[in-house]
């Protein structure tokens, strides 16, 4: 799917992606010539279809995780389905999770928890963050587009 600014005859470029609620996916596109912005809104079924393809509108923000679609989309997953590799380490040592961040992590279903933990861990590692706190999780979630994690 592409968007064309008819007046300028220019392909519009992706600007921003949001999940405003109710299962809606909003993607904004801007004309590089006149600056006009339009937003494409999908209904919940269309949002689900995009997610089912395993692609991300706006481009990938995190590296591909093993079985990420399965772990992110299966509702009846086993709590004991996975054992994860040991935590990542920074140049100065293993990344620490604050008690509050750990508590928040426990609210993520175990089926997907390991993957979520790794994504946050990689985020902290890449930025040299030694301790993951709820604030770091919020920032990462917003930056990486991890709504729901």
């Amino acid at each position, binding site marked *: *799917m592409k968007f*064309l600014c008819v007046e300028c005859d220019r392909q519009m470029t992706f600007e921003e992606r949001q999940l405003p609620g109710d299962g809606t996916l909003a993607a904004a596109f801007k004309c590089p010539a006149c600056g006009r912005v339009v937003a494409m809104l999908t209904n919940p079924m269309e949002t689900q279809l995009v997610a089912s393809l395993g692609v991300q509108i706006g481009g990938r923000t995190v590296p591909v995780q093993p079985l*990420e679609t399965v772990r992110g*989309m*299966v509702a009846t997953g*086993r709590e004991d389905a996975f054992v994860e*590799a040991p935590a990542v380490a920074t140049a100065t040592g293993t990344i620490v999770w604050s008690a509050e961040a750990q508590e928040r992590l426990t609210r993520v279903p175990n089926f997907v928890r390991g*993957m979520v933990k790794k994504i946050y861990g990689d985020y902290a590692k890449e930025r040299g963050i030694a301790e993951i706190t709820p604030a770091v999780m919020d920032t990462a979630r917003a930056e990486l587009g991890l709504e729901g994690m």
Partner: protein
Amino acid sequence: MTLNIRTYHDLTEPDRSGLLAQVVAQRQRVAARLASVGHVIAVMSGKGGVGKSYVTAHLARALARDGRAAAVLDADLNGPTIARLLDAAGPLAVEPEGVRPLAGADGVRCVSMAHLVQDGQPLAFKGPEAESFIWRGTLEASALRELLGDVNWGALDVLLLDLPPGMQRFLELCDILPGPPAVLTVTIPTAESGDAVRRAMRAAVDRGAPLLGVIENMSGPPFAGRAGDDLVREFGVPLLARIPWHPAADTWGQLAGKLG
């Protein structure tokens, strides 16, 4: 006003989403993972209840006992049985190289949706229930792609894919894999089974998949018919085995030997 709008392919400016590139990357991931697999073989049938999974599991074990590195991907996502047939219990280890398959009977590696979904529960997905038929097939195809590409199968002589009844999963595989898989067909002797399996074999031929042969399972009474003979004659492929209700000790070894 008549708009003079160009086609999708005429618009070639850089796209930050890179959706096409993401899809290409998905396919390359599968191709790279399976580069170390000698043969990918789909065990299929147009008919349910003919014993595909049973044949798949025993064939994989016989291949392993014969010294070949064999694995099974349970591609029956909604009715997985391979985990039990191969006595392979989880959990699955997630490692930097990917998900490590479990080792089952005779060392056969396997991954099944039974390792991922709660016992006694259906494979259910998050998302809107209304009109789920629109996206469910897509999601299952994505799951199949991830099971092929995200599992660290390692170097294998044979990867058997245990398919559910019908042709849909086979067609999905043709889109996901670098090329159509070789096909091993299972039928029972009845004419009804022959009718359904014939359609599946025709679909495989239409997609350019090599047919390795036919296995007639549950051969002999109480089933009457000659579906196995009919199918091999019609498609010009070998009848690899006629497996009775109570197979002899060397049945599976002989079948494995016929797969080169």
